[in-house]
């Protein structure tokens, strides 16, 4: 088991290097530092000196891959690729281009609110989805099934933007049940988080119920279910004791994949509700064209994705003994 995890983790390294190369190509070759400086300083009356100064202030005045002016290791370390891209490997994100804040500490600080918003959305969301999916799998083929699925399709056809804008207007402005946006620390954050959590659940529930329903129905048509029925088990105990347990395996992989992303948070929710998490951090960086932050978030996202895949693999082997570690 241990060696399996090690091997899987090692497999992630070339992928991370690949991600790094792609981001480097995107941010430094397609968009060289000169253009970046021009954008930062504003298009009007930019002098070459100002560009040079901005580049040396932010460490963009180095050569891309090989620094011929240096000796020893510095030939490769004192380059843009090493300073800006390779450092991401040990989570040294550097400073933001515009506001000069330390990105690493900012990320640590903002993970909390993101997590606080994403965790309840995720847990309650998946509970609602599984319960509903079980229910309509129990009453499969009935009118309840048909209408629930149709409502799910309608719900997933509505853009998240409408849910957010509509709920903010109706619950926040008309009924005044929740504050429209904002954030507070500690227990007071609860009243700010309620509405985005509810919207998050409603927005995702359509896709989820349908997906879990197909998983359950697939299990229901298998041989062991027929055997269980033939033994004389009631439909209810077949569903709860046999089908649910077996359907847990695909559900688990699905859950494990989303787990790491709870830290990143949702771009839309956080920016609409002004929650100071990583999502709004990213949106602000996009609007300010702060490439250092966007770059860091791309790398962070890739790392979390790979962790998610690793967790999926591991949980799969634990949940399903039939899978051999090879």
């Amino acid at each position, binding site marked *: 088991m241990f060696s399996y995890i090690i091997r899987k983790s090692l497999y992630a390294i070339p992928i991370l290097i690949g991600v790094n190369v*792609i981001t480097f190509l995107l941010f430094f070759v397609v968009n060289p530092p000169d253009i970046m400086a021009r954008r930062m300083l504003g298009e009007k009356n930019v002098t070459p000196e100002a560009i040079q100064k901005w580049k040396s202030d932010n460490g963009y005045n180095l050569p891309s891959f090989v620094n011929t002016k240096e000796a020893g290791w510095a030939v490769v370390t004192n380059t843009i690729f090493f300073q800006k891209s390779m450092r991401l490997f040990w989570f040294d994100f550097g400073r933001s281009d515009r506001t000069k804040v330390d990105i690493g500490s900012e990320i640590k600080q903002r993970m909390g609110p993101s997590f606080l918003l994403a965790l309840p959305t995720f847990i309650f969301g998946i509970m609602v989805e599984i319960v509903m999916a079980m229910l309509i799998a129990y009453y499969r083929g009935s009118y309840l099934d048909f209408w629930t699925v149709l409502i799910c*399709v309608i719900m*997933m056809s*509505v853009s998240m933007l409408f849910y957010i804008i509509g709920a903010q207007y109706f619950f926040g402005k008309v009924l005044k049940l929740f504050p429209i946006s904002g954030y507070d620390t500690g227990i007071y954050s609860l009243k700010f988080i309620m509405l985005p959590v509810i919207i998050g659940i409603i927005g995702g529930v359509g896709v989820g119920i349908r997906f879990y329903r197909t998983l359950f129905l697939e299990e229901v048509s298998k041989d062991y279910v027929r055997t269980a029925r033939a033994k004389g088990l009631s439909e209810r105990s077949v569903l709860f004791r046999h089908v649910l347990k077996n359907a847990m395996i695909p559900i688990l992989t699905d859950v494990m994949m989303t787990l790491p992303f709870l830290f990143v948070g949702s771009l839309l929710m956080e920016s609409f509700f002004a929650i100071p998490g990583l999502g709004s951090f990213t949106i602000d960086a*996009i609007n300010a064209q702060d490439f250092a932050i966007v770059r860091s978030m791309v790398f962070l996202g890739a790392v979390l*994705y790979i962790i998610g895949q690793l967790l999926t693999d591991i949980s799969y082997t634990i949940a399903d003994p039939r899978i051999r570690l090879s």
Partner: protein
Amino acid sequence: MLLNYYMNGFMQTINIHLDAYCVAGNCAVFLLILLIIRFIQSAAHREHYRMAWRQLKVKVLPMISMVILCIYVLLALMDSIAWHDRALNPDGSPSVNVGNYPVFDTNSLTLLDRAFSSLRKNNEKTFSAPFAGEQFTMETIVKANGAKQRITPKLKYPGAHWLGTDKVGSDVLFAALKGVRTALIVGGLTTLIVIPFAIFFGVMAGFFGKWIDDIIQYSYTTLASIPNVLLIVSFMLLMDKGLFQLCIILGVTNWTGLCRFLRGETLKLRELDYVQAAEALGVSRLKIIYRHIVPNLMHIVLIACVLRFSAMVLTEAVLSYIGIGVGSNTGSWGTMINAARLDLTREPVVWWNLLAAFVFMIGLILPANIFGDALRDALDPKLKTR
């Protein structure tokens, strides 16, 4: 050259003019129609698709959805065929330049613009509610005796705006209609970019295996591990905003899922008896791929495309909200929502902008989802999609 000469002569006699952009747009439309007709023609000969169609055509909801989708496609096609009109002098006569050559408008108009020209031209001053006869906002007027009065002035075209007008007084219904083409291009063109990539790499990886498989698997895993939204955002920040840039990057970020799926299916197909038999008989590998593998993957591609379509339209709206979508020159529902969000904070509230975008969006996405589901059930009920 001769053809060009005759074409120009012909168009001058009927008073229209095409520039390179119009020609490209119009050609793309006809090419697309041709492609669809070709696909339907080839599908009509295959029993698999004919059976699916027999199953599909007796279902009410999917058929209604198909009709609605066709209307949307028609609107988008109308909005894609464009040409320039003769420019008119102030007195209404067609204007000519020194050599007595006709002068044309700098802006081209599409077939949709022409069909709904009353909506396009009948602009008010500012907000007005649906079907209203009076302006939504108050104005101060000075009466003949010098007294000031706050009134809601009469509209220039009372009752003409079925979905009201926006801040600058242009018709909301017309803006929503203009968004149809953008949405369909984002959904459709992206799919057209995704399909060849996914089929080519997926089949290559699954059929040839070994190092080809390793390289292709590595590249799509790497690409897939970068969060989609962030990759799109980075790309759009670095490039200029625009419809085609958006389609390209959406295509680049979306081919990985389908590619992985097609690779798996190819691995399965490769082991089937008829492929093994063909191989044993010495049929060349390219021919096996062309004759046996790809045709058996097409139904999966078709299902994936229809189901992906609505996700693309939704993504466009979100990206336009973040401000990295198609840009402000191209009318789209995302930009409408973005503008409507500010209108919602007004007192009294302006809701019809948002409603128009909502109705048009759900009117496209809901039928697309229902039709996609029915298509999947008819073609391959076991296919698992999320």
